[in-house]
């Protein structure tokens, strides 16, 4: 149960980030230069792999309770950001995330940027792709390392992220455009719920408290977070209607 939950959480969170990274790589490649965009993608992937390779084993040296309290706290702070934005979007207080609009904006900016060649590359396309993949990938690395290390199964978290990477890359090559049909707003809501659930679970354990039924209580925590998230959406929607 926990293993499946772990893989599914890492998969969903990573898929959302990879879709966003794909949009940036495509915008840089289509508008400017494919070779420079793909070189940026490759360079960012190497930096990310080095970060995961360095931090992953280092975290295994920290005692599990200390690790869980740190990871739980970080995941909660991080997850609450996702959940908060997702609830504000779902209740109409924040504009929905629109991949097509972001793609069009990135393309317009890429066209307007001047030409500068360095190391035989279109520097704008390279840096746009590199920064985009690095920033989105850092979130994936953060999730894989925190989820995996707190559960002692970095391999499972990496598996979830790897499946997402292959899936998004394959669909991206087939579609040759931004993945606008991916229900990103719903996915971000689900990821916010999962990050918050794991954050609550691990920070409580790290603080020394014991869940009734240990790991079996995880679905209960998930149900609680889903309930408060949908409850908050309903309350905020009602507030919006009352204000209109």
């Amino acid at each position, binding site marked *: 149960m926990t293993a499946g939950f772990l893989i599914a959480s890492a998969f969903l969170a990573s898929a959302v980030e990879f879709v966003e990274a794909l949009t940036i790589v495509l915008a840089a490649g289509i508008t400017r230069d494919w070779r420079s965009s793909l070189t940026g993608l490759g360079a960012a992937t190497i930096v990310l792999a080095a970060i995961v390779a360095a931090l992953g084993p280092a975290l295994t040296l920290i005692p599990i309770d200390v690790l869980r*309290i740190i990871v*739980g*706290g*970080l995941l*909660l*702070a*991080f997850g*609450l*950001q996702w*959940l*908060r934005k997702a*609830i*504000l979007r779902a*209740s109409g*207080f*924040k504009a929905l995330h629109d991949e097509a609009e972001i793609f069009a904006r990135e393309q317009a900016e890429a066209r307007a940027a001047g030409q500068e060649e360095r190391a035989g590359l279109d520097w704008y396309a390279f840096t746009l792709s590199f920064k985009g993949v690095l920033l989105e990938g*850092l*979130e994936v690395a*953060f999730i894989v390392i925190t989820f995996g290390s707190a559960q002692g199964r970095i391999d499972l978290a990496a598996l979830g992220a790897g499946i997402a990477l292959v899936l998004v890359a394959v669909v991206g090559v087939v579609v040759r455009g931004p993945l606008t049909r991916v229900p990103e707003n719903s996915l971000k809501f689900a990821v916010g719920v999962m990050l*918050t659930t794991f*954050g*609550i679970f691990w*920070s*409580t354990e*790290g*603080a*020394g*408290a*014991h*869940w*009734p039924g240990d790991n079996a209580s995880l679905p209960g*925590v998930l149900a*609680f*977070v889903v309930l*408060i998230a949908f409850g*908050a959406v309903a309350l*905020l929607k009602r*507030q919006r209607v009352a*204000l209109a």
Partner: protein
Amino acid sequence: MRRIRAFGHFWWDFIVGDDWRAAAGVVIAIGVTALLVEAGVDAWWLMPVAVGAVLWLSLRRAAAVSR
């Protein structure tokens, strides 16, 4: 110096985001849970309640700003 500040700003923005009060609420809730455990209370129920409260307060602030 500017690079160190930019590096710190990036990580602050990455983890804490635009509502530092929510992150502070999480840290306080974890601390109180640990103190209750030290005092012999198995306070597993505290984090879910605290997170619900922190989230709702953060949402209310964000909704008030966007009006």
